[in-house]
């Protein structure tokens, strides 16, 4: 009846596990329980069998179940505990070699003596039982089964001390499920059980089945399992936003994630195992500085900047065994900071200039009735107002840089810019052939193009002012060239284009150029300006094509 109970519990547990597929461990558990049921069923048939040949037959076919159990146990344990890298198909094939040979030897045992050397029926207490003498392979598969049982138990032993209650309960239940047949089998092999020559291991599977059922129902075996823990630790390191390098006490790089590889412009196989000083002398030189706090690392040849911080790695004895250097990409932050500084400086400079002019003219107007001074005063007040508008546009661009932006047709952008500019500056001749192939571009180029064309018209002091616009495709980019015959741009203004920022001594007088440079940069384009006092200014804007219209 115990064997019947074993089958009942095994099939029930298998069906409950079936419901949890494809949870990690569900398939091997089904296989494990199937193996146990098969072994139990064949034992029943063997006991019921009357002849020697039929008893031998049921022992031989029982090896199908017996051989499955250790592989299924190991796979279940590995999947459950998250060691899935050892459960690939090649591993399964490897684990299956000995069991497969065993099944083959079992099914062909009549023609060799590898599994059993002798089979006889003996009478014990009036019952006819089969007595078989183990052969060489019997001890091999027994040892192999014990080995896989032990290997499968190791990940579970680690979970016995888990901080998560269900995992402790699950792992204890599973270990109990392993130990019951294990101990029974050991006692049988040692001849310590009065089982009349019948291996009572399948009977102990009743305990295993109950333990697995308990793990399934009481401890939610597949409702909460530790599978992701190990993978999460790896993927956290690999997928963290920051670059991270692990150094040993000799400053050799022992691990690094993809972000760190990018920041150091290297490849893992080049960097791992080598001193940091060889891979990145600049970063290595930051060493002591990082211990004092944080510092900025700027790799050569790229525009990225990284905020570097360091933390020590210690073992359980509080000994320092290495350090982790994290690289946080702060390029955008620094760029924004720089832009704000420029914005602040130019804004303050222009306001102060305009206000001083206004104050001077207002003082003059207080004592003299001068129409020209009043006009100047008005002109500077208008400039302050325009400045405010420009600042608003710049801040608007900064805000848009953090959002997903729409696309606009380049033709319609240029048409609208030309319409509004030609209306404001009727004396300027515009040369532009519209109606060419159209391209979808970032909507930020609306304000960029408007400022380029307005600047070309506004500051053109030529007696016959001309602004020409050309559009040309260049691979994934479209190139917009705006050329004027004006006086050119002051070299101080061009510092913004050349360096992307201004120095304290060199700063632009207005925001038009800043809008063009920053807007283009944020939208992923580039600006080149060629300027001379004789030939005027040529602005070449390279704009990414988002899609052809």
């Amino acid at each position, binding site marked *: 009846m115990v064997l019947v109970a074993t089958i*009942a519990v095994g099939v029930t547990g298998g069906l*409950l596990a079936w419901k949890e597929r494809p949870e990690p461990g569900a398939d091997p558990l089904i296989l494990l329980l199937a193996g146990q049921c098969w072994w139990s069923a064949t034992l*029943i*048939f063997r006991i019921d069998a009357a002849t020697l040949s039929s008893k031998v037959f049921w022992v031989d076919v029982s090896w199908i179940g017996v051989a499955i159990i250790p592989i299924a146990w190991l796979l279940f344990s590995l999947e459950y505990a998250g060691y899935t890298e050892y459960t690939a198909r090649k591993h399964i094939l490897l684990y299956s070699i000995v069991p497969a040979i065993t099944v083959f030897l079992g099914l062909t045992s009549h023609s060799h003596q590898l599994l059993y050397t002798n089979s006889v029926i003996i009478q014990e207490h009036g019952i006819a039982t089969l007595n078989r003498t183990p052969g060489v392979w019997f001890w091999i598969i027994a040892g192999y089964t014990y080995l896989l049982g032990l290997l499968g138990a190791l990940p579970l032993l680690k979970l016995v001390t888990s901080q998560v209650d269900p995992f402790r309960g699950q792992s204890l239940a599973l270990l109990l499920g392993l130990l019951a047949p294990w101990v029974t089998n050991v006692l049988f092999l040692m001849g310590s059980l009065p089982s009349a020559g019948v291996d009572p291991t399948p009977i102990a599977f009743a305990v295993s089945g109950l333990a697995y059922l308990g793990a399934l*129902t009481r401890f939610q075996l597949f409702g909460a399992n530790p599978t992701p823990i190990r993978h999460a630790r790896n993927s956290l390191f690999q997928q963290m936003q920051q670059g991270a390098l692990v150094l040993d006490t000799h400053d050799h790089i022992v691990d690094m994630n993809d972000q760190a590889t990018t920041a150091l412009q290297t490849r893992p196989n080049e960097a791992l195992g080598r001193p940091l000083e060889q891979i990145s002398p600049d970063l290595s030189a930051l060493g002591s500085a990082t211990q004092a706090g944080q510092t900025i690392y700027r790799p050569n040849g790229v525009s990225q900047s990284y905020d570097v911080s360091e933390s020590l790695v210690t073992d359980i004895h509080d000994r320092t065994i290495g350090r982790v250097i994290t690289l946080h990409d702060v390029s955008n932050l620094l760029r924004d900071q720089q832009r704000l500084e420029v914005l602040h400086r130019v804004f303050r400079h222009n306001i102060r200039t305009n206000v001083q002019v206004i104050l001077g003219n207002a003082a003059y107007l207080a004592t003299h009735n001068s129409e020209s001074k009043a006009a100047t005063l008005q002109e500077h007040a208008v400039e302050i107002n325009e400045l405010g508008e420009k600042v608003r546009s710049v801040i608007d661009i900064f805000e848009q840089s953090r959002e997903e932006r729409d696309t606009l047709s380049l033709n319609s952008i240029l048409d609208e810019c030309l319409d509004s500019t030609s209306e404001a500056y009727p004396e300027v001749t515009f040369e532009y052939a519209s109606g060419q192939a159209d391209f979808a571009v970032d909507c930020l180029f609306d304000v960029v193009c408007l400022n380029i064309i307005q600047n070309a018209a506004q500051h053109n002091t030529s007696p016959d002012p001309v602004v020409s616009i050309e559009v040309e495709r260049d691979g994934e980019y479209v190139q917009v060239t705006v050329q004027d015959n004006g006086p050119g741009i002051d070299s101080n203004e061009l510092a913004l284009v050349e360096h992307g920022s201004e120095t304290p001594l060199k700063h632009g007088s207005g925001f038009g150029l800043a809008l063009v440079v920053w807007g283009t940069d944020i939208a992923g384009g580039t600006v080149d300006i060629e300027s001379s006092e004789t030939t005027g200014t040529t602005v070449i804007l390279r704009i990414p094509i988002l899609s052809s219209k």
Partner: protein
Amino acid sequence: MPTDAQNPGKQPDIESVRNRSLITKLATLTRPVRNIFLYSSVYLAVIAMAEAVLVSELLALPLTPAPIVAGLLTFAVYGNDRLADLETDAKTSPARTAFVRRYQNGFYVLAAIAYGLAVALSALGGPISFGLSLLPGMCWILYACDWIPTLPSGTQRLKEVFLLNSTLVAVVWALVIVCLPLTYVGAPASPAVGVVFLFFVLATFVNTEIPNVRDKEGDSEIGVRTLPVVVGVRWTKYILYGITGLTAVLLGVAFVANIINLREAVVLLVSLLFLNGVIFCLNRTENDSALAVAAECTRLPAFVVVVFPLLGQ
């Protein structure tokens, strides 16, 4: 052999609740029991047990645990089938689906325990009995599940394959009902066993197609090809009449050839008569659900005819 559970009866309207008679009060009190009996497939398990007893009596076999195994298997497999088809059954059997959905976790555990007990008990009947008990489970996986997810898309579940679906159900259940009692006692397969087996295959096939008449629209929507979906209700009835007629002829020939005796022939013909009555009512009554239950019960009169005299002995 049972094939499917239905949604018999309607919920009482407000007026009838206000004016409860003794009978309606009784019906209200017993509704939970009735729901469990009908919707959880317990009634199918009871019918399966009755059929296994009927087979044992017809073939003059001693009573064994086979009827219990048949009942447990039926409960487990049909329970799982209902759980698997919760979404698709919602339209055709809303009350049953609601019941199964409400208790689905407990229902699955009960079905798993039932199957576990069935397999374990069958092991006592020997290896063939053990194999027979595994057969419905394996066939159900083939029948109702996308059991090999890596197969190319477009691969059908057997449940969706025309005629094969009903034939598979009929053959597997006939094997369980007829062969389990034999394997327990180790009786040989005689010509009489063949006749009874064929009877159960054909009758179960008819039973399977009867609820398909009610489910025609739903099956058609989800791509399950059944007789009513493919040939229409009218031709389905003709075909089912044809099968019951063929079965009657089989019984007649078997009787004339002295394979079965008069008592066995009459008992099985009584069952066929009831089955024909149900086919006759198809499309003539609005309560198709009750018809499907009636079809499942068409072997019960035969069971009563055979077993009642035994009780008096």
